[in-house]
């Protein structure tokens, strides 16, 4: 009997790796422990009374989005959305990034 590969078998050969990738991603997520440093960071937050992530450090008014401040674009609503996108999407042009002063 002439043995040709059944097309449904072929489909499984495509579907199985795809499914394996999905299952792999889910498994990876399930078995992954907290990223390194998480316990450390929690300790630092508690010890120093930190209120914000150091994600948006480019300006004073973006550094602590949850804390209204003298420089804050939006002072009155701690839950308010950032007025200026904290963290511009792109860095300023290089000539503006030249350090000034001493």
């Amino acid at each position, binding site marked *: 009997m002439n043995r040709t590969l059944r097309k449904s078998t072929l489909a499984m050969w495509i579907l199985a790796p795809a499914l394996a990738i999905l299952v792999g991603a889910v498994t990876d997520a399930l078995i992954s422990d907290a990223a390194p440093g998480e316990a*450390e960071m929690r300790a630092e937050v508690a010890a120093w009374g930190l209120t914000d992530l150091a994600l948006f*450090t480019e300006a004073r008014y973006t550094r602590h989005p949850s804390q209204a401040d003298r420089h804050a674009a939006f002072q009155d609503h701690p839950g308010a959305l950032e007025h200026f996108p904290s963290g511009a999407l792109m860095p300023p042009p290089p000539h503006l990034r030249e350090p000034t002063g001493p």
Partner: protein
Amino acid sequence: MNGFARQRYLLDFTVASLMRRPGRNLSLLLVYTLVVFLLASVMLYSQAIKGKAAALLQGAPEIVVQRMEAGRHALMPAAYLERLGRLRGVAEVQGRLWGYYYDPAVAANYTVMAPARDGAAPGQVRIGAGIARVRGLAAGDVFSLRGYDGQPHAYTVAAVLPATSELVSADLMLIAPADFRAFFGLADDVYTDLALSVTNPAEVRQVARKLAERLPDCRPILREEVLRTYESVFDWREGMLLAVLAGAVFAFLIFAWDKATGLSAEERREIGILRAIGWETGDVLRMKLWEGGLISFTAFCLGYGLAHLHVFHAGAPLFAGVMRGWSVLQPHFALTPQVDALQLTTLFLLSVVPYTVVTLVPVWRAATVDPDSIMR
């Protein structure tokens, strides 16, 4: 068993028929995968970073009290500490000393903090890994900055904070409270703001209300508001990205719609042949269901898997810029791989179901034509 064999035969036919236009169907699969990948990446990234913020800020002060002067943030007199300490339900009050320092040498902003405990000894500084990186500093070096009076203030770097904690400490400078006051020219009887902890976490709101009555010129910021801020900051960014991606998604939808609904005369004739040789309407529909399901499910699996790799193991190079913004002192951090059943289901329903339905509708119309049509 018979039903299974039947489905398998239908799958045989579906694949054989897809393989007739390998280039077309493969490119469809690729584009489809790309769309799922983009959507899943954005969703995974914002979910992960929101989760991260929530997990880390769990230990933030339960209430921060800021004083207002003419509607602006002002320094907090130490006397307020006394007035608050007697408030029922407040376990502890602490004056916080923190501020910003712009370092023109590297054009970066530092957050200067003088914690009451676990801070730094007088004359010493502990700096975040981000500062150490941009300034090229290590423990033992002398870190000299210009104070409010224009005079240089020098501190010995006692330690660099661990790089693994950059997400909260990249730009931190911890110095002693006395050094802080000398550096910024602050009087001894003021604080930046106050941090409160309450005895019963369930009473935070009541405490905040009483506090606002007792100190009318002050404003409390609750920890839940802090957490909500991060939630909305990233929601907003996710929304912005999704809005941009919506264009791509709609383009794909139009493409898929066109491909799926535009049943060619050839396909119509094929369905006629199948009906004539004895296939039921249901068989034709199931065959098409396999076709739509196979393509969309494969794209869903691949897209999600690739998005997982992209976000959690490659640092999300495509979106990190938009989600995190730009800054000189960018913290280095890794997101914890995670999966959310609801998110996975949403993505599945969004990617697999519409396409499958769109393939099915026109076929359903064609499959009900008379089987003798191909003989006429």
